[in-house]
């Protein structure tokens, strides 16, 4: 029953994104922005190639450029994901459909997982559409020493990092949508929360010792950066998964407590 309930609610949740043009517009915008960025990335790469042909180029490799490209993608995801998660639970409250869910034989955790999975799938679709860029690079490089293609291992690790960090943001957004009936409030708090996690790495720079190390571990973008340099560490997985589980747990608590308060 556990998976049956989740799949029932997940299907509705996923479809709900496409009842309005919102998802189409956002996915379209994302792909459009990434396309423009990829274009300028290629331009830069060609410039560096020319410069290094005259022995003037610095140690710029295609992998370093790809790292910058994906760092930009991460920032765009940071901005866009809260828009996908803000409606998750707020819409149930404002439409009164929460009463239907709470009087159906489902567990709140199944509902929470279904909601998270619905938004997470949208993000996966967005990320999936950008896979064309590294494939393009790989296909059109001649794999020579002067013009190597991107290291597909690093690209793979980067995507894994993007998926994990996006899911963390989705979990954060899921939580904030569960504590309010207002989409705007959910949006603002999700932004604030995500930027707070980002600020941790800046804060870490002004500290030292154990505090610095702890803050750096907690800053998700630091974890993501290690993925995009091609380092896969168990520690980073654990940190991302901890964030996701923590926020989904809080969401479950907030939904459960709602029945008692209503």
């Amino acid at each position, binding site marked *: 029953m556990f998976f049956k309930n989740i799949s029932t609610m997940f299907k509705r949740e996923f479809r709900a994104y496409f009842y309005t043009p919102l998802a189409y517009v956002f996915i379209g915008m994302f792909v459009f922005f990434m396309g423009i960025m990829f274009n300028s990335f290629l331009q830069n790469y060609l410039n560096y190639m020319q410069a290094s042909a005259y022995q003037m180029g610095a140690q710029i490799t295609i992998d370093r450029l790809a790292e910058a490209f994906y760092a930009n993608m991460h920032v765009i995801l940071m901005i866009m994901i809260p828009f996908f998660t803000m409606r998750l639970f707020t819409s149930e409250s404002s439409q*009164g459909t929460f009463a*239907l869910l709470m009087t159906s034989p489902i567990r709140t955790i199944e509902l929470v997982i279904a909601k998270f999975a619905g938004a997470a799938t949208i993000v996966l679709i967005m990320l999936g559409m950008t896979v064309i860029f590294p494939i393009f690079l790989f296909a059109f490089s001649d794999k020579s020493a002067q013009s190597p293609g991107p290291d597909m291992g690093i690209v793979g690790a980067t995507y894994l990092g993007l998926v994990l960090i996006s899911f963390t943001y989705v979990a954060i957004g899921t939580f904030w949508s569960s504590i309010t009936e207002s989409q705007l409030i959910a949006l603002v708090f999700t932004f604030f929360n995500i930027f707070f996690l980002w600020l941790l790495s800046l804060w870490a720079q002004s500290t030292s010792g154990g505090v610095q190390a702890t803050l750096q571990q907690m800053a998700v973008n630091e974890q993501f950066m290690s993925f995009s340099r091609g380092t896969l560490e168990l520690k980073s997985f654990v940190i991302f998964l901890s964030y996701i589980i923590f926020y989904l747990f809080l969401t479950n608590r907030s939904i459960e407590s709602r*029945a008692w308060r209503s």
Partner: protein
Amino acid sequence: MIEVSNLVKKYGDFIAVQGISFKVEKGEILGLLGPNGAGKSTTMKILSAFMPATSGTARVAGFDVFEEPFEVKKRVGYLPENPPLYIEMRVREYLEYVADLKHLEKSRKKERVDYVIDRCGLGDNQKRIIATMSKGFKQRVGIAQALVHDPEVVILDEPTVGLDPVQIVEIRNLIKGLAGNHTVILSTHILPEVVMTCGKVVLINHGKVMVDDTVDTLTRGDTLEQAYLKIVTGESLAHTQH
């Protein structure tokens, strides 16, 4: 089929329901009456396992709503004051979703969805997006979702609100038709409706049961309206004397 004993619900300091008890036998239709704020909706929310009571017990379809809410939820169809509609969905799609949520067997899904669409007069509108429908139609979709999984117990919070006179008659007949196979609790402010559809009446005021009787006995001397006013205003007059 439904057994409520000493049910209490507090919202902070406010006591919405103060120790009510009543019984509904299988196949009966019970009218839950009372002024606004009397505790009708709260009682219905507790019976549908939507929220727990502060104290007291309630058994619905043989299960305790607090101990075994899942078993209760499978067997109860609930229409809250505001119909719980996903307004961006189409009528049929929505009812199929509710059927899945309530664990209706796959083999019966089409038959049941067809049946409630037909009975609630939604046949011509089953492909419409709910958001584009009038209040009356939305209310009908709300009733349909409460019936789609063929529940033993049906709890309807003001089911005829927002309907026009013709629709009211239709829905009233629909509810009457549920008697026998289903046990129904409905709340309403329309007193003639109770006389026409319900066998039993429970009147609550200030969270307490004032009357628990059959419609026939209540309407023996007075009309139901007179009986209602006597109880409600008499009680509230006594209340103000303190």
